[in-house]
């Protein structure tokens, strides 16, 4: 039923068309979950490119499909979820056509993941060292001793004091922030080309957040890896990522250069998101801003724009209610932006529309 009213849209992305610089190319990715109320699409025809060394932020509220998209890319979407369409090309090779064994060789080696909850990310009954060594030896033909030395170096690199001795410690002997560092060390163990960090700082306190981001930043730069940072917090995106893609209800609805987005978001949803960022450099009156309403129920078929019921601009507008917007190109003050909105780039509706 959802299939009927979703048109496949060919994106005219601000990313340059796929060329030698393109690391990952996602085309028409669609991920569905089988539920008691039918099949629900968590990711709906998402397309984008990541260039080598690029830092891309995927921003959206909880349930917008960010994590489902990340897990789909590495083929780890858990049942009842399933990737039902699209291509995921890493250096031109489609990951979807790979066997589990082939994909395993990619995961943790060419594409690494950093997860949200460092507390539950480790096997509780194996030492940190054993798990690091395991990750290294899964991809590199090295002896246990060599892998252990590498593991100690990695731990030291992410700022774990007394690294060689701490290899023998178990996960519960590490604090949350330290565990997140270890996760990052693990992700970087085999020099990945792409690091996907799924809300890596959400479970951490603010000081640790800053440290972890800084470390991620440094390590990605040092190794020349591309970074895909998934977050619901626009605040940490500024100054950290080159470009931002905003996700809403399983679709990318705005794709902009990071500076362009913060200067002037093209999609009304992005603007609402920006209003929700707590700014310490500005005095804020009253309550923190929120976006009224919730994400559309994915099990229910809808027509038109998925953001229409919550949109300050198009709510009640006949076009928004009936026609699904395609990706419009907008010349913003800081460059070209793309937005899936009938009124992309407009901050107010003109009377005649």
């Amino acid at each position: 039923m959802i299939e009927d009213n979703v048109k496949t849209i060919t994106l005219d992305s601000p990313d340059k068309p796929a060329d030698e610089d393109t690391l990952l190319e996602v085309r028409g990715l669609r991920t569905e979950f089988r539920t008691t109320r039918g099949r629900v699409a968590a990711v709906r025809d998402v397309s984008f490119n990541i260039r080598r060394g690029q830092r891309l932020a995927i921003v959206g509220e909880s349930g917008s499909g960010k994590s489902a998209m990340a897990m789909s890319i590495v083929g780890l979407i858990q049942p009842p979820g399933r990737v039902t369409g699209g291509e995921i090309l890493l250096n031109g090779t489609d990951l979807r056509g790979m066997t589990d064994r082939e994909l395993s060789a990619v995961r943790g080696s060419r594409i690494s993941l950093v997860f949200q909850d460092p507390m539950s990310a480790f096997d509780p009954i194996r030492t940190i060292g054993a798990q690091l060594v395991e990750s290294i030896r899964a991809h590199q033909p090295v002896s246990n001793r060599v892998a252990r030395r590498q593991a100690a170096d990695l731990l030291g690199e992410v700022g774990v004091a007394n690294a060689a001795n701490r290899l023998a410690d178990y996960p519960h002997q590490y604090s949350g922030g330290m565990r997140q560092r270890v996760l990052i060390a693990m992700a970087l163990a085999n020099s990945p080309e792409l690091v996907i960090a799924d809300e890596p700082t959400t479970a951490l306190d603010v000081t640790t957040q800053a440290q972890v981001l800084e470390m991620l930043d440094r390590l990605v730069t040092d190794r020349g890896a591309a970074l895909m940072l998934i977050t619901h917090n626009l605040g940490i995106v500024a100054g950290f990522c080159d470009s931002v893609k905003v996700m809403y209800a399983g679709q990318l609805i705005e794709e902009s250069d990071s500076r362009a987005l913060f200067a002037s978001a093209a999609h009304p949803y992005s603007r609402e998101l920006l209003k929700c960022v707590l700014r310490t450099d500005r005095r804020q009156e009253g309550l923190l801003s929120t976006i009224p309403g919730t994400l559309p129920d994915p099990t229910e078929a809808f027509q038109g724009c998925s953001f229409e019921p919550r949109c300050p601009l198009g709510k009640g507008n006949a076009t928004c209610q009936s026609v699904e917007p395609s990706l419009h190109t907008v010349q913003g003050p800081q460059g070209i932006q793309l937005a899936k909105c009938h009124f992309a780039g407009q901050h107010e509706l003109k009377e005649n529309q």
Partner: protein
Amino acid sequence: MIKMILKRFGLAAATILGASLFSFFLLRKLPGDPARLIGGDLADEQTIATLRQTMGLDQPFPLQFWNYLSSSLHGDLGFSYSTGQSVGTLVQTRLPATVELGMSGVFTAVVLATVFGAVAVYRKKRGADILLRAASSLAMGSPPFWLALVAILLLSVNLGIFPGPEGRLSPGIAPPPTFTGFYTLDALKSGQFGTFFDAVRHLILPAFTIAVGPFAFLSRLFRSQLRNTLREPFIVVARSRGLTRGSVFLHHAVPNSLLSLIAVTAMLVAEAMTGSVLVEKVFGWPGVGSLTVDAILQKDFSVVQGVILLSAALYVTVSFLADVVYSAVDPRIRAGVK
């Protein structure tokens, strides 16, 4: 740590004391007079009264219990009215047979349950899963003594694959020199391979009979534990590090799921040793179980009491051992984390 150990010992002592008090009380209140049993139907009242006096049966109940307790603590569990042997010796000669049988049974159950449970979950084949669950339902519902009878009828009497209910060895084969009391191990140690194979042949049927119940229980438990573990976040994280499905299953899912089997297995060991009473009887296994059945039939107080005391001690020891094993294999417990 010391406080915890003291607490555990206190608890253990209380358990054993409670069990012995309960059995002591129960046995005294059952109809029937042991003095009459010993004296025989023809003995006159005077003889019986004298017997009662020498046995201490004329004393008030609390005093009897006190006497029993204090002599127990000195290692004297009394003597069997029916055989005249001391309970300690009786139990000692019978215990190895029971332990050998119970351990083999539970060991078989654990191995089969983990292998079948793991295969059923890993293969994701619904058929294998349904088969396992059906088999375990059937097994859980079958009383062991009935299984024992069926096994003997089918595999021994009709097919002749296994020996009949003749105990631990074929008639005419001498037991190996005692070292552990386990015939299989003792035979191996002294190099008597003929005796070893005979002992194993005799062990297989009763051990499998005992294994059926624990297997049914453990395989279900392990299956559901595995499925739970596979849903843990660290499993997906391990996959994201590039480990294959099989590797994650074997190195992370299985060990974590096995942890939860320890406590249950410990209880099953205790149960197999104390609860295999009827199975032992059916197979003519000269263990504590047979001893108990005979003692109950003959109202042999001291023996029954001794066995109950032994069972209580066994449960306490086994659950203590389970804790020790836990702290050895689970780093969180070792460190005192909840």
